[in-house]
């Protein structure tokens, strides 16, 4: 418990979290502080490229673990299964329509790469290593949740939600392609490649992450301000309960696979996190009647800050305790 509190305190007072808090505060106070869309997108491309590349280099360095394939499969299964659980939970906790519930469920099966990045920062800061291929697991978990959610809706008799164009858009969305692509580039070029671009993708990484989280805070704060009232208390609670439920599934999966302490923590983080970049686009195409204010506010305004501040330290502490690693 002390460990968790310690980790949580260190985490809460890190430049990353404080930058996010600054963004939220500025938006709630209606400051005109804002980061141009192109700069925000540029930073997200940088982060995806860097995290993918470093994951690939780590795989090149440590060799392929026997559990890599299993981890990928487990990730896909988690991503496909979690929406069903989220959907069931929403039936109990919220009063959302089937469409809104399915759209929300898709987000929680999928993953938030920024949460993943923040978690790897905390792990690195605590000296806990993790499997480099967890980046590939993250990429693998992006899309299956969307298909699950659409299946949930089509079961309700509502057809024609999916076509080939949409399938291609989902499977080849920019984040997946960049993450997987840079993962392979890192894998192929290995440590030699890393040395060449280290000063770009490693050293300034934490700083870019600060500005990116400042932007996420601004967007989340603006969302909370303009959508206040959209979320009922039940739905709000779901935004905090679901990550814990997801993390538990991630924990069990990680333990069964026998991955490292860091690997277990990242499985928890991926399962706990909710998509914000890729899934909303798929939902706008396939379920346009679902209210975006609900899923965007829940994912970015509630679950993301929860994971960032409390979730990650808890998941890391639990993973450490149960795998015998130290946080």
């Amino acid at each position, binding site marked *: 418990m002390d460990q968790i509190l310690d980790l949580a305190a260190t985490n809460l007072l890190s430049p990353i979290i404080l930058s996010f808090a600054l963004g939220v505060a500025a938006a709630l106070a209606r400051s005109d502080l804002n980061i141009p869309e192109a700069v925000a997108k540029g930073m997200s491309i940088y982060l995806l490229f860097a995290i993918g590349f470093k994951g690939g280099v780590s795989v090149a360095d440590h060799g392929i673990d026997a559990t890599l394939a299993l981890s990928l499969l487990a990730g896909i299964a988690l991503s496909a299964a979690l929406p069903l659980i989220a959907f069931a939970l929403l039936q109990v906790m919220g009063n959302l329509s089937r469409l809104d519930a399915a759209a929300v469920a898709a987000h929680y099966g999928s993953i938030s790469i920024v949460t993943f990045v923040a978690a790897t920062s905390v792990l690195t800061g605590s000296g806990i290593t993790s499997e480099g291929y967890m980046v590939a697991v993250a990429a693998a978990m992006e899309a299956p949740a969307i298909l699950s959610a659409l299946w949930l809706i089509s079961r309700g008799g509502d057809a024609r939600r999916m076509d080939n164009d949409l399938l291609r858009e989902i499977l080849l969305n920019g984040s997946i392609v960049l993450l997987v692509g840079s993962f392979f580039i890192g894998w192929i070029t290995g440590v030699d490649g890393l040395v060449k671009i280290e000063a770009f993708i490693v050293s300034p990484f934490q700083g870019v992450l600060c500005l990116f989280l400042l932007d996420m805070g601004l967007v989340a704060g603006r969302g909370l301000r*303009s959508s206040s009232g959209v979320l009922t208390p039940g739905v709000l609670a779901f935004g905090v309960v679901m990550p814990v439920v997801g993390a538990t599934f991630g924990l069990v999966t990680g333990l069964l696979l026998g991955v490292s302490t860091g690997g277990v923590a990242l499985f928890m983080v991926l399962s706990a996190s909710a998509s914000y970049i890729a899934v909303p686009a798929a939902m*706008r195409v396939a379920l346009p009647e679902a*209210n975006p204010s609900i899923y965007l506010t829940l994912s970015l305004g509630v679950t993301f800050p929860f994971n960032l501040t409390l979730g990650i330290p808890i998941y890391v502490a639990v993973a450490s305790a149960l795998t015998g690693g130290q946080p």
Partner: protein
Amino acid sequence: MKTHKAKRVAIIIEQVMQSRLTDAMSKAGVTGWSVLPVLGGSGSSGAWSREGQVTRGAGMVQVICVVRPDRIDALLEEAFSVVERHIGIVTIGDCEVLRAERF
């Protein structure tokens, strides 16, 4: 200068639907259009803005399409099939164009 009657159709539509819309317009025999950025807005589904956004699910664009009056019905038919279930707004105005032979 000699001008020709035409219709100017402006469709404000979600960015995720843009390629579906322009594909449908091609199907309707429309060969020319331009896409303009939209920074933000407000409507029955609330307010939005592009500022700092990284999600690909938010944001609209405006597709502008100048067509010969006799093509307008086919265009609206196809455009409607795309925007039908989606948020967005379609306006049609009269205009004159130079160089009608170009489209």
